[in-house]
């Protein structure tokens, strides 16, 4: 009977082999699919099992996981920074996450390959895996000053402040905003209801206006047009005189391009410095028409406009000066109208690039990443994005922007004892509607520590909102917060 017994033994072997192959197939090949199946509630539980890393800004904790002692939903997220930091931290809801919580999710929840060594040690010691903490470049004083100033009297808008020499983002505010603490509980229904309410709000509080929305930049864009002009001819200086008619006839159209409020610009022939100080429209439109679309586009690209989409690490919406049309369109584009659309972050990069002697640094929010034991995993490495203009030309532009604050439309941004450079913008949205108020600036001009861009949205600060009156004072308080500390 040994021969059939041996065959039965082989049959048993085959049965076990089949079981083993199938187990391998399930747990190695199909594992990811099974894990991510929406009916697998383990994903949902797993979100509350890991002590997620903290999000900090220096000593200030912006997001942390609290041990609730609950069996099923042990760790829950808290945002001590609340509304002020919501556009940065985002939130960690039962079924989704947003902004920093989403962008650095794998590090925060400890599943990133960068934490492999740590996880290996935890496995041996039986420790629960903890997520890495993410330290941000945010300066809490600047952030809070910006939030206070922007949210006062129900304004809507956004502000981004950058350290020009590194690209580190010092402040990023968007108002109106939301309290992420309302979206963190493990009860899906409550959270979905709260989120639904935010989502239906027509002010879109969940949107981070600083990087997810673009607006016509208005007169702040004149610095880009001016940069293109300076770069096109080395003999151009702040004192170079240009034509500045009261009204510019736009070729091939019946339309004209007036100055702001239809006012005259000096005597009709002014220095570049004067044109920028007064924010005259006609000289810049004329310059742009002479330079042509390609030169303007090229200069814009050197500031990072219309290039590869940025990640800070959240995705940044694209900016662009619009497609090439006729000369009339180009004239409007050159003063930040027409199809010209910029995110506040992009305009902050323009200001920072000028302040940093023409070199635009890649903006970033994450300063460093440390594992649960404090060991550093990654640290920010400032990188150049592009060179927007030569050092000499950048110096000339800086000088003119300083003059705008000292003698021009932006005198509300003056800080005693500090050389501030800036440019206001008052962007038309639609006929009969209040304009957007813009301001871009940097300080101190000799050794820039901060560059920023801010926008106060149409209608939220009165019908006569302007860059100089509405936006510049907000910028001043933020710059003071950074420079004072």
């Amino acid at each position: 009977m040994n021969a059939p017994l041996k065959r039965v033994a082989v049959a048993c072997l085959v049965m076990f082999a089949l079981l083993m192959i199938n187990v391998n197939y399930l747990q190695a090949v199909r594992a990811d699919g099974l894990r991510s199946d929406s009916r697998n509630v383990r994903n949902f539980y797993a979100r509350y099992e890991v002590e997620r890393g903290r999000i900090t800004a220096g000593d200030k904790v912006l997001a942390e996981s609290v041990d609730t002692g609950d069996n099923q939903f042990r760790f829950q997220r808290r945002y001590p920074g609340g509304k002020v930091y919501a556009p940065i931290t985002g939130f960690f809801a039962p079924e989704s996450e947003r902004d920093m919580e989403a962008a650095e999710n794998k590090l925060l929840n400890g599943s990133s390959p960068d934490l492999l060594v740590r996880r290996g040690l935890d496995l041996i010691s039986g420790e629960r895996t903890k997520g890495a903490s993410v330290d941000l470049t945010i300066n809490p004083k600047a952030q809070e000053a910006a939030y206070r100033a922007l949210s006062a009297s129900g304004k809507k808008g956004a502000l981004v402040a950058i350290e020009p020499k590194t690209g580190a983002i010092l402040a990023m505010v968007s108002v109106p905003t939301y309290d992420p603490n309302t979206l963190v509980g493990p009860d899906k229904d409550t959270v979905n209801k709260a989120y639904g309410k935010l989502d239906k709000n027509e002010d879109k509080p969940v949107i981070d206006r600083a990087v997810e929305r673009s607006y016509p930049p208005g007169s702040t864009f004149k610095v880009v047009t001016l940069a293109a002009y300076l770069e096109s001819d080395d003999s151009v200086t702040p004192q170079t005189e240009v034509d500045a008619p009261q009204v510019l006839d736009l070729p091939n159209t019946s339309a004209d391009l007036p100055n702001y409020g239809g006012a005259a610009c000096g005597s009709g022939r002014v220095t570049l410095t004067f044109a920028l100080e007064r924010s005259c429209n006609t000289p810049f439109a004329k310059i742009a028409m002479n330079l042509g679309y390609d030169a303007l586009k090229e200069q814009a690209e050197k500031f990072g406009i219309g290039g590869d989409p940025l990640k800070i690490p959240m995705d940044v919406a694209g900016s662009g000066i619009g497609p090439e049309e006729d000369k009339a369109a180009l004239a409007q584009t050159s003063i930040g109208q027409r199809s010209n659309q910029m995110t506040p972050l992009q305009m902050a990069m323009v200001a920072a690039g000028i302040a940093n002697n023409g070199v635009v640094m890649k903006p970033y929010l994450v300063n460093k990443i440390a594992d649960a034991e404090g060991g550093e995993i990654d640290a920010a490495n400032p990188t150049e994005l592009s060179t927007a203009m030569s050092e000499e030309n950048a110096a000339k532009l800086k000088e003119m922007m300083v003059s705008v604050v000292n003698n021009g439309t932006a005198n509300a941004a003056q800080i005693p004892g500090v050389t501030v450079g800036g440019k206001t913008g008052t962007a038309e949205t639609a006929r009969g509607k209040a304009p957007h108020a813009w301001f871009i600036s940097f300080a101190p001009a000799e050794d820039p520590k901060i560059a920023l861009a801010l926008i106060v949205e149409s209608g939220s600060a009165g019908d006569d909102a302007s860059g100089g009156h509405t936006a510049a004072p907000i910028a001043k308080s933020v710059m003071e917060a950074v420079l004072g500390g």
Partner: protein
Amino acid sequence: MSTPSAELVPLPAKRRVAQLVMLAFAIVIVMGAYANVGLAIDGRVPAGMLTYGLGLGGFMLAAYLVLAKFAPWADPLILPLVTLVNGLGLVMIYRLEQAKMGGASATNQLVWTGAGVVLFSVTLIVLRDHRALQRLTYTAGAVGLILLVSPLTPFLGKEINGARIWIGIGGASLQPAEFAKLALVVFFAGYLVAKRDVLALAGRRLLFIDLPRARDLGPVLITWGFSLAVLVVQKDLGSSLLIFGTFIAMLYIATQRTSWVLIGILLFVGGAILAGMIFSHVQDRFTVYLHPQDPALYDKVGGSFQLLQGLFAMGQGGVIGTGLGQGHPKLIPLAFSDFIFPATGEELGLTGLMALLMVYALIVERGLRTSIAARDPFSKLLAGGLSFILAWQVFIIVGGVTNLIPLTGLVTPFMSQGGSALLANWILIALLVRMSDSARKPPPQAIQDEGMTQVFQR
């Protein structure tokens, strides 16, 4: 056969020390697993670790001593391997109990393990020569049948989870099919030894196959009909498949005729199709097997929810598992009984399951080795049948919960919570140990040297 000479038959080593070391090793692994569960759940070594670990260790030491005394030549690996599987089952049940899963009780399972070891010892002590069972062939057959149909008796039988396979005695529930399978294997072995010549030789050749005589088909048809009856009346797909498959395998071992296997498979397929046409629950199982991820089936009562939860658990475990106490095996319905395998897969991962399957395969292999080494046909058939039924049961339940084959409810031997199965399987192991002892025991030596035996060169 050549004449054995003293040199050609070396004394097999008893390997008692090796067995003791392996046993200790198994207990250490189980205690480590207990500690792991406690550390993961509340950060400290559970107080029960010593109770459970030493309890299990004590039982196994007793089993070892009985084995050393009453079956000294027995295979040294069988007991440690079974201890390991039984211990891991205990840990998983303990872990599920800690997660407050209703129905999971590690203490009960430990008590049943103790009872299993008692039955193991009693079997070894009472049954000095397993060939005594051959005389009980028809008694065993009758006992098996009665046990199998006992759940149908009014008042005694109980229906749990849709299958009428339980009898209640006092407050306890027993699953008589587990004992019936032992009795039936004894019956098959005795019956086939008696009839094997007729079944093997009579018949005529058709094409490539030796067909048996029509009247010899009787026993096969009776077993087949009986299996179908179990399926129909008790809705117990698992036991039906288990018994019929084992009968066919033993028939093949006894007769060495492939035709029996083919006839068996044909009958099985026919029966399955028939059952599928008549009974909706058989058909449902098959649909679930084909489309486990279909959302409609998932939501249906008796649909793929449980199977898919098991698959999710295994997917979540991945290659190295979540770690004991760190997964959610509680989410799988019946994770402590039928679905203990996927539950283990979630926490110990592919690595753990491969090791577990390897241990089962080793137990089966030791059993089959015993069968090959056995000296008489009855022992060969009985050991072969018992080993096969163990492998077949693991295949049916593990294959079922991993969606390799349609799911039929059976316990995972030694792991699933449940007294009957544990007791029956410990008796099964005692029988294998008894047979391996007699197979490995050196044959009686000649009292006086009869001089050199001529060995022919071939």
